[in-house]
């Protein structure tokens, strides 16, 4: 890992962010906001409004991490299988303040993770097996318990987990996984079914 980045994250002293070698933090052309009167009825895809950011390597890293956070199980597919990596790429490429801040967090975080993989296992992040991935993730998965020297990495993981979850649960497969059954017209609204009322002690 780049020594200056390590120092910065360890000390969390970030008045002027140092340049990170090999990491393009800002796109060559400034992306434009969609404005205050966008077309609402069009369907948008990642890349339609802003050119995307991830290099092929970053994409592989993002895929590995998203699928570690939301893997396939008996109920639903993995995050990357439903387009979450494309969503995160769209997100970090957008011109708004929240997304610009996340861009820095995500790109620096993936670089940290990859460097950590090399340090611990002499392998790149994209080539780690599940056990190796978990050994790093376990150290950074909960900010209140993260060691001071990897606090920034833990904050990155928290943010990346939120983006992965948000991307996943806003797909048809994610909605189905949660048991969301709305967004269909109904002739009347009946309120909660009896089994729900019984479960909460109201019937």
């Amino acid at each position: 890992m780049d020594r200056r980045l390590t120092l910065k994250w360890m000390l969390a002293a970030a008045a002027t962010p140092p340049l990170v070698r090999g990491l393009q933090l800002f796109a060559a052309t400034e992306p434009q906001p969609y404005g205050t009167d966008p077309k609402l009825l069009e369907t948008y895809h990642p890349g339609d409004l802003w050119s995307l950011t991830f290099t092929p390597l970053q994409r592989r890293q993002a895929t590995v991490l998203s699928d570690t956070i939301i893997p396939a199980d008996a109920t639903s597919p993995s995050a990357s299988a439903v387009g979450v990596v494309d969503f995160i790429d769209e997100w970090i490429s957008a011109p708004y303040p929240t997304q610009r801040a996340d861009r820095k967090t995500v790109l620096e975080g993936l670089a940290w993770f990859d460097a950590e993989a090399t340090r611990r296992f002499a392998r790149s992040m994209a080539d780690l097996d599940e056990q190796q991935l978990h050994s790093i993730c376990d150290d950074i998965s909960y900010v209140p318990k993260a060691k001071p020297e990897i606090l920034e990495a833990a904050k990155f993981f928290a943010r990346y987990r939120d983006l992965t979850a948000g991307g996943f649960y806003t797909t048809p497969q994610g909605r189905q996984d949660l048991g969301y059954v709305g967004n269909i017209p109904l002739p009347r609204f009946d309120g909660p079914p009896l089994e729900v009322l019984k479960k909460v002690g109201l019937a």
Partner: protein
Amino acid sequence: MPFVDAEAAVRGEYDVVVVGSGAGGGQMAYTLTMSGARVLLLEAGRRYEPAVETAMFQTPEMAPLRGTSTPDKPFGFYDATIDGGWQVPGEPYVQSSTEPGARFDWWRARMLGGRTNHWGRIALRNGPYDFKPRSRDGLGFDWPISYADMAPYYDKVELLIGVYGSNEGLENTPSSPAGCLLPPPKPIVSDLLVKKYSATLGIPTIPFHRAVLTRQLDWQSSPAKLHPGNARAQEIIASDMRSRAPCLWATPCGQGCSIRANYQSPTVHLPPALATGKLDILTDAMVAEVTLAGSGRASGVRFVDKHSGKSMEVAARVIVLAASACETVRILLNSRSAQFPQGLANSSGKVGKYLMDTVGSDLSGQIPLLESLPPHNEEGASFGHMYVPWWEYKNQHAGKLAFARGYHIEFGGGRRMPGAYTAAGLEWLTGGSYGRKLKEDARRYYGSMVYFSGRGEMIPNENSYCEIDPQMKDKWGIPVLRFHWRWSDHETRQAAHMQQTFAAIIESMGGRVQKPPQTDGAKAIAPGGSIIHEVGGAIMGSNSRDSVVNEWCQSWDVENLFLADGAPFPSNADKNPTLTIMANSWRVADHILDRMHRREL
């Protein structure tokens, strides 16, 4: 007579020019044209056609950034607001102070219908106390009218726009006459839990009042009640009521409603007004000032046509400003002349004074009883089936509370459409799970959160006002507003009380608050303007020294100038202001019609 261009508007002959097409302007245009007056309605934003522009069943993955809010779309991509927000490009305003607690953020929606397109459709009546607050506790100002004066207009507005709710007979929480309200929707399970456990704390939970059609309007008997003796108006509104569909129990009201099941001015007020043939609507017309005739009467308004950038004037016998409280103030203060050097209608010096918003504070909790419930549809009327009206009138009046006015509680929960922040920030519950465990946790906690939002009365004060900034102009060359803002202890203590109450309810339900309730009211209170209930700034009163307009919202100084938005409100009850804006606008319109018939205007 429908949508016209600026040249046609300038050539037109009108009885009344109405500035603003939202709740106040929409109601004014409706009432006047249904009685035969010729009206020109000016709107600063663009024409908006909800029937073909509303995102109804779109899902987040079809939108940029999964529909999440951005500075361009502050309430999310699919929110109905167009060209609006707390910042509007090219239309700045100025804060007089950078101190926390001293800012007022001004929401505008530059579109036909204004903020009625995205509002929460919460439609509460002010109660009798709310019109006479000073008489009750010595603070603020009384209205020059009483509940009895407004009640018939509340009845009419409820019949016209369609409001669901119930009559509970609680203190200062008015009942509507039989037949006014539509049946409330059934509560969702979290509503029922809030009701059950709040009751143990002595806090009542009752059906909310919202402008959503839970069934078709009564097009057979309502028209005669709305327009007695006016067959043509009855025919128009009966036909229009038949064409409004009831709620289909899906899609968020804030995105607008293409089937016209909820109230927004362009779907409810303007179509029948247009059907009279008496209404012209000019959009993209940014009004700069009211113009004067030699007699000291208003002659019309000057506006900037946004298409050509040209400054133009339209004329009418009567001018009604309903541009939103602060924009109405801005127009008055910018209408300077030798006769009115401080701005129009401002001989009292009170224009811009006593600006108010609503006190807001929120708290969320997680309720284990609601975990892992069987999947079921909880969308209902999109939110707000029940609420808590202010319940402490007696203790407050007896001096047992540290603040003088009340608040109501809006709350919600449910298995809603997942968004970009679904399953985010769960660490406080999960300890930071990821992998298969995170998927299990997401299923477990989905739909188990309940939020509480307090909405409370702010007492008008001398430190909360707006004026014209001496330097800055907007992109149309019109001088902009500068805001001054200060909460009093009545508001900040109320916000702290909200936090304690919400935490007590959540804990009574066996729930957990994510963060401890904020005991410092100055930190608990949302910034001025953030609840988007701006009222005041040109208050009505009983004499020309202390108020800007009289009981008919008619300027003391200029007899053919009236206000019909929130600007004339001398107080801002906890009840959301929109229904009162509409009822008051109808009342003022009736007065204008009466005076015009008597040739007094």
